[in-house]
């Protein structure tokens, strides 16, 4: 009996692995492998500034991947993802600061809270047929509600902001997420890789196909017997929980949290720019988008620094122009176009 079970389990894994790699061309796999190796060795070749830039890139690749589950896979436009990151950040930071409990436990604590928050928004929206633009507004409204609420929440220092003791560069304490940029780099790299694998696995599974069906035509999906309410709820909750880890990371990397920033609309918009520019619903879109956007923004910063001017808002104008150009010229995003150019079209979703 046991032997049979273990054989079944082994077989399941073999089949799962086969399914996981199905349709991946060898050249694509090779490129992906080289890309990953480059990312792994990068921090040993770069200075702290460039490592920090790469951390930002991977952070947005991670959040973009999480947001993409909702919009790219299930077709639900959320413009309030800052609420999930913000809740994760505040919960982990508060219990670390007040009780000295490690952020990993903090993340586990945040999971049920964030899942409940996502479920509430999802329930309100999907039960009462709040769809499309209305749904997007509802998500913003919740994020704004949280922003104003936290601004008046004295336990977390309200609008004065919550500060964590600044990280010690000397020793890396992975358990308490205190360390130098290189440690943070590997944390977010692993997180982004895990998010990528999760998204790939989700897309290859039943739920992934159900999501795509709902995204393409919800009525038809329902007619085919898919419980669209349940799967849309699943999309919101999974996306919310993954996003909340980004918040935990953010809190411990930057060591300060202000409701005004953490929950602001611009934070939500920053999260969604990467996947939109890269390509909504693709697996590499969020990664490519994060690289393109952060890379160009850093170049802009460097250019402004070289000229000796500091214009607040210039970066956002630049983001706006990028978004405008992509939406007008490449509505599918950059990745589908690029993958066709590279002959990797099999990867498109």
């Amino acid at each position: 009996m046991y032997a049979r079970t273990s054989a079944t389990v082994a077989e399941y894994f073999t089949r799962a692995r086969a399914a996981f790699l199905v349709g991946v061309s060898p050249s694509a796999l090779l490129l992906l492998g080289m890309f990953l190796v480059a990312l792994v060795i990068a921090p040993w070749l770069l200075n702290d500034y460039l490592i920090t830039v790469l951390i930002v890139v991977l952070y947005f690749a991670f959040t973009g991947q999480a947001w993409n589950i909702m919009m790219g896979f299930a077709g639900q436009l959320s413009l309030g993802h800052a609420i999930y990151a913000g809740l994760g950040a505040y919960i982990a930071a508060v219990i670390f600061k007040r009780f000295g409990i490690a952020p990993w436990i903090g993340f586990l604590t945040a999971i049920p809270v964030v899942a409940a928050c996502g479920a509430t928004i999802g329930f309100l929206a999907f039960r009462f047929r709040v769809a499309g633009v209305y749904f997007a507004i509802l998500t913003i409204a919740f994020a704004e509600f949280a922003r104003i609420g936290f601004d008046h929440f004295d336990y977390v220092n309200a609008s004065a902001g919550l500060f964590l003791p600044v990280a010690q560069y000397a020793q890396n304490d992975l358990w308490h997420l205190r360390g130098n940029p290189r440690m943070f780099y590997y944390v977010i790299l692993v997180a982004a890789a895990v998010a990528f694998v999760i998204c790939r696995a989700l897309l290859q599974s039943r739920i992934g196909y159900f999501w795509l069906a709902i995204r393409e035509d919800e009525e038809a999906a329902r007619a085919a017997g898919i419980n669209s309410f349940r799967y849309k709820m699943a999309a919101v909750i999974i996306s919310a929980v993954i996003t909340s880890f980004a918040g935990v990371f953010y809190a411990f990397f930057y060591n300060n949290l202000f409701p005004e920033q953490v929950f602001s609309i611009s934070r939500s918009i920053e999260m969604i720019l990467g996947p939109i520019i890269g390509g909504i619903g693709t697996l590499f879109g969020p990664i490519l988008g994060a690289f393109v956007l952060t890379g160009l923004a850093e170049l802009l910063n460097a250019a402004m620094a070289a000229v000796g001017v500091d214009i607040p808002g210039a970066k956002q104008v630049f983001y706006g122009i990028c978004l405008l150009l992509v939406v007008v010229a490449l509505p599918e995003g950059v990745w589908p176009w690029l993958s066709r150019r590279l002959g990797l079209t099999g990867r498109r979703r």
Partner: protein
Amino acid sequence: MANGGLSEPGLRPVPIDVYLNVAVAGILTGLVYGLMALGLSVIFGVVRVVNFAHGEMMSIAMYLTVFLFSGLGLDPLVMLVPIAAVLFVFGYALQSGLINPFIARPEHSQFLLLVAIALIIVNTLLIVFGPDARTVQTSYALDSFQLGALIVDATKLYAGAAAILVATLLFAFFRFAPVGKAIRACADNYTGALVVGLDVKRLYALTFGIGCACVGAAGVMMTLIVDVTPMIGPAYTLLAFVIVITGGLGSMAGALLGGLLIGLTEALAGLLFTPSAKSMFAFAILVVVLLLRPQGILGKRLI
């Protein structure tokens, strides 16, 4: 007379006439909110595009007002029509240049286009005018009218009256003017409008222009009531959405009603709790409306 007990709430039970004064002030502000939301509603009702840059357009109008007031000493009430006209041109150009090609695109695509426009507007204003709050100090800024126990700020009264005037003109335009009727025809039946030979693209551009003119007029009057910073754009976009969804997206009367409701709620919430938390109550109303009547109080009718 102008500061009749409004400044120290919370010490003793607040007298009833304070509530009344605050409620009236809230309703007058709500009328301006309503006019702003009316623009959004008209655009959505006809063009079926959600103007995510609505509050940002209002902040353009507000900065124009502040700029002309401090530079040339022009009174905001005098500039109502010219600035609305400027915003009309802006909206017309935006629709015919950028948005018309997006009419057949998916909803989220249109939405993102306007998010991009909003980002550009907010931060261009930030670059040009800086982050500090600007204000218009008219000669009548501190005047007030007294009617029994009721004390009404002159600025709010003028703003509310102007909002009613503009909204009435708009209703009349859509009801009686041939172009207004043609626009309604586009809203009712796109294909039908094409068949009878209406230039739908131009009418869409006109509609977007009219919606922007509304929000421009609202912006001029809003400078009488609040300070302007670049960052108020997104906040008012959100507020306009809350109002329009509360009243019923696509319903003109609903937008005005929603504006009144939200204005009143904000004013009373500011008195009973703390002014900085007043928007929370607007969002709470939004959630309640979405739960009980997702199409909004006055339903989802076309104009």
